[in-house]
């Protein structure tokens, strides 16, 4: 349950794990205190062997990812050939195109190193993150796809839904899947769904 269950929310994870048949959950003292009203305290352990957390959270590519990260399209604008994008102009348009400003930056765990190396999914189509990722936003080149203000943007998640796999972020950043998902889950607004 460390780091709020790797950013997935310890209360949700502990409750779900016990429901699914886990004998107990492993938590430090602060973590245990936060769980006292959702899990029988006798099932909150301070030591012991655990399940493979990468498998439980779906981070190893063999099980279903539990977390998906999303932003939304704030605005769209034309970008002309040769024009730069975001700080330092690390990307310049090679053709006239349309770029979307998307919520999600390095303060939400969308790692700064993903600029010009990773892509997102909007309405089932992949689009590259162009230019530097900023603290709260990034810019995506949507080309001539039909994208509207308010559209949902998938940063990573279950590849079967069309979202990029977290493995792509591993290659782009050198970070581990655990720390990538933890940072997003700890800093972004969390929602739980079926």
């Amino acid at each position, binding site marked *: 349950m*460390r780091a709020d269950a790797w950013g997935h929310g310890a209360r949700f994870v502990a409750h779900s794990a016990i429901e699914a048949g886990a004998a107990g959950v492993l938590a430090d003292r*602060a973590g245990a205190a936060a769980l006292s009203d959702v899990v029988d305290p006798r099932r909150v352990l301070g030591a012991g062997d655990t399940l493979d957390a990468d498998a439980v959270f779906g981070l190893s590519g063999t099980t279903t990812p539990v977390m998906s990260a999303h932003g939304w399209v*704030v605005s769209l604008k034309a970008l002309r050939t040769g024009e730069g994008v975001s700080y*330092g*102009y690390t990307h310049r348009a090679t053709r006239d195109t349309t770029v979307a400003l998307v919520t999600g930056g390095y303060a939400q765990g969308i790692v700064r190193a993903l600029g010009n190396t990773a892509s997102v999914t909007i309405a089932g189509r992949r689009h590259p993150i162009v230019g530097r990722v900023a603290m709260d936003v990034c*810019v995506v080149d949507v080309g001539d796809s039909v994208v509207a*203000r308010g559209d949902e943007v998938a940063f990573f998640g279950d590849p079967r839904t069309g979202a990029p796999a977290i493995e792509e972020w591993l290659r782009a950043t050198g970070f581990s899947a*655990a*720390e990538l998902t933890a940072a997003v889950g700890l800093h972004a607004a969390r929602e739980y769904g079926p």
Partner: protein
Amino acid sequence: MSARLRIDLEAFAQNVATVRARVAPAELMLVVKDDAYGHGIQAIVARAVAEGVCWFGAFDVRAAVATRAVSGPRARIFSWLTVGADEIAAALDDDIELGVGDAGFLDDVAAVAAARDVVARVHLKIDTGLHRNGIRPEDWPAVLLRALAHQDAGRIVVVGVWSHIAEASDHDDDRARAQFDAAVNAAEAAGFSIEVRHLAASAASFARPEFRYDVVRVGAFCYGIRSAGGSSERELGIRPIATLTAQVLEVRDDDAVVAIGSLDGLPSILAGRVSVGTPGGMRELRAIGLIESIVEAWPGAAAGDEVTVFGRDVSSATDLAETIETVGEEILVRVSPTVPREVV
């Protein structure tokens, strides 16, 4: 036994004073987005108000409202994320000024203001080349006309014109500034009385007086975070206000095991690239696990000793960042909210 982020509010106040002296007569807008860059918005805003800061910059409405709760009614709070009707309403109810860089959003703000019978204070954003949000120069005249109609109808008042610069080169920034001046002139020619013009963030506000205008938006330097690849803290006259520490759990041979890991927000790729402060001096950070890390031991190292990952008199957040080609801000904002903040 866990890690801690210690926040020195005295150093913060001194940094704020340094920035204000440097940019005067322009005013400081203290940027407090993302929990005041991870430092804790409550303590930061309270101290800033006590120091006389009257402008605050919050990216989203949630942070703006959190700022208002601490600042009281007199502070001017600026929020610039394009949001939906509910959040526009929440912003207007708390007297938040809105940055508008999209014609559709301008209409939305005017509509919500009309429904609530209030006048929204708006800062129009010109895109001077960053190509994130902001109105493209060719669209600016049409948006000014639209804004004028909303202003004449009593729905909005355009109090500001603003932009972000790319800091790709001085030449690019000079071009951006010329576009900014043209946009301000066009707004004034259209009949607006522009009270505040703001263009510069930390770096440009320090280095380039002509970018200061009426207000500068500064976060990093107030928190003592220098720019990656830029001037030193000493040259800038600022000091880091945050210090990240962790306790030694045990010592095994030449390894001190410390209670901080990548799940706490310490990038695992720092391992082997940086040194951290120990009671025995700077020592290599050898490995970063999920919840524990390994530091090269020092003579007399013992459980309970404190190791300083970044802060004053050791490596700064920007020093760490530079070893992995990022910025100090990212090191700060990745620190997990579960790491306790200790205000001193």
